[in-house]
């Protein structure tokens, strides 16, 4: 049985509070040795160097706490897909593809199409992803992306307008399959995948569909898919995802995997163009004070504006580049 006395004794044993300023660094180094040994393998000196750099707003690659690594976007990389994009964020490299297929809408939402998001972590990125090793991370990334992009259960706040995918209500709709692939992993996969999906969606053309007028009322109507005419997908509502990683008492954006190994916790927020929050996930086991979370949310909102503008210009540059070639 856990009793009140026991809890108090534990508190005394571990110090006043794990989130007490100053204590953070020692505790995080103590409580996550397994994690830092696992993927990255840093010595104590290196760990202190990273943590100290973050505390002084000069990270080991010369960035400030709220600066992203250079982003490069390439669109139309997969000819078989309806839309695709490759995003490089420093050494992190991801590909997203969008495929549209005709399907039947779910009986719960007859006037809407369906979107499914899957992420695959390839063993080419890291040996730990081999076999079932990548499954856990894949599932985590997939759910986080679904939460960030698909909105609530009733479909409000979704970055992708599901009703635009409907063709004949209750009969036919487009099923959008969004697949993410991690080619090379150096931290901040979620933000990179979010950006790649945004770019892939703006690259997506959905074929125009002609519905035969003389369709029987109860049978499946006949459709004719055009090979030439495509509808541009509306991506104005697709949010960007910003992950804020807490190391010590400070938060950083776009953490590399070395920096991620030193994190106590991280939150990923997706923010749309109107500055509204469309989804939030917390990662990492350590608890956070509610006021810290709210502070982190307001920082992500600020960062997301810059990222949104950066992505927009990169995407349009990539589109222009693709048209030229």
């Amino acid at each position: 049985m856990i009793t009140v006395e026991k809890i108090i004794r534990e508190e005394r044993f571990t110090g006043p509070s794990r989130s007490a300023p100053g204590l953070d660094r020692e505790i995080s180094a103590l409580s996550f040795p397994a994690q830092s040994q696992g993927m990255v393998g840093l010595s104590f000196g290196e760990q202190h160097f990273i943590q100290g750099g973050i505390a002084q707003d000069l990270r080991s690659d010369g960035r400030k706490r709220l600066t992203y690594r250079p982003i490069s976007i390439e669109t139309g990389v997969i000819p078989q897909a309806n839309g695709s994009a490759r995003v490089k964020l420093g050494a992190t490299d991801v590909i997203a593809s969008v495929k549209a297929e005709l399907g039947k809408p779910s009986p719960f939402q007859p006037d809407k199409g369906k979107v499914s998001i899957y992420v695959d972590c390839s063993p080419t990125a890291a040996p730990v992803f081999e076999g079932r090793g990548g499954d856990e991370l894949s599932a985590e990334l997939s759910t986080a992306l679904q939460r960030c992009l698909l909105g609530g259960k009733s479909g409000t706040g979704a970055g992708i307008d599901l009703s635009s995918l409907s063709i004949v209500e209750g009969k036919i709709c487009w099923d959008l399959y969004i697949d993410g692939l991690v080619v090379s992993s150096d931290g901040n996969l979620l933000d990179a995948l979010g950006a790649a999906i945004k770019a892939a969606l703006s690259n997506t053309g959905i074929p125009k569909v002609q519905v035969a007028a003389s369709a029987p009322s109860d049978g499946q109507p006949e459709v004719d898919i055009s090979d030439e005419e495509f509808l541009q997908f509306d991506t104005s509502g697709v949010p960007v995802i910003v992950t804020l990683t807490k190391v010590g008492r400070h938060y950083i954006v776009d953490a590399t995997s070395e920096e991620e190994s030193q994190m106590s916790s991280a939150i990923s927020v997706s923010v749309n163009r109107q500055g509204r929050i469309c989804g939030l996930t917390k990662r990492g086991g350590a608890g956070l004070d509610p006021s810290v979370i709210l502070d982190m949310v307001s920082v992500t909102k600020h960062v997301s504006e810059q990222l949104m503008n950066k992505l927009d210009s990169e995407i349009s540059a990539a589109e222009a580049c693709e048209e030229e070639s």
Partner: protein
Amino acid sequence: MAGKSGATPTTYSPSPTTQNKKRPPIFNDVDWVRSDARGFQQCRPAFLRTGAVNAASGSAYAEFGNTKVIVSVFGPRESKKAMMYSDVGRLNCNVSYTTFATPVRGQGSDNKEFSSILHKALEGAIILDSFPKTTVDVFALVLESGGSDLPVVISCASLALADAGIMMYDLVASVSVSCLGKNLVIDPISEEERYQDGSVMISCMPSRNEVTQLTVTGEWSTPKIHEAMELCLDACSKLGKIMRSCLKEATSALQE
């Protein structure tokens, strides 16, 4: 049977009304009454008991309205041989649904991510250093899904961990809030969850005032999210008190 054609059908098929297609307009109004006559900011009465399973090191049963959950904790026991040496303990969580938990049979398997959310919600509260080289298994079973399943599972699991004598910084209480139109509704039932525009789920350690897990879906403005978080945290601290008193009752019953 042939003579009675057109009369009552011999096979029963569930009425199509169970698959409501449109959201009832009632949820769009500013004022409506919840189907169980609760206020918007009123949680369902919680029934909590520890020691539901004899074979487990610790277990708990929780009933929040129609949501019924049982959680058993096994261990700490030796980690599997294949696992690498670890000087902190491991936590293994699994959430499963009975096939009859949902109105449509077997629908509960849609919730695959629950296990990892449960893991993340509990991880920060358990003093893993206290059982090196070993694993603690937390198995949760949703007997009946009546809405807010995951928050109930998380609260019940932390109670079961306490019952098993696993050292924790604090109990983890979890509460969710749904946004329906302009209203924030705490501790939603299945029907409300189905039509929700967004949801916030918080699990926190009430006496440390630390949030261990937080998920948000749907579109939220900053003031609204502040309001929802306040609501959740307030409810969590109250739920924490109920959980604590449940544990105290169980120990005092043992001593008598």
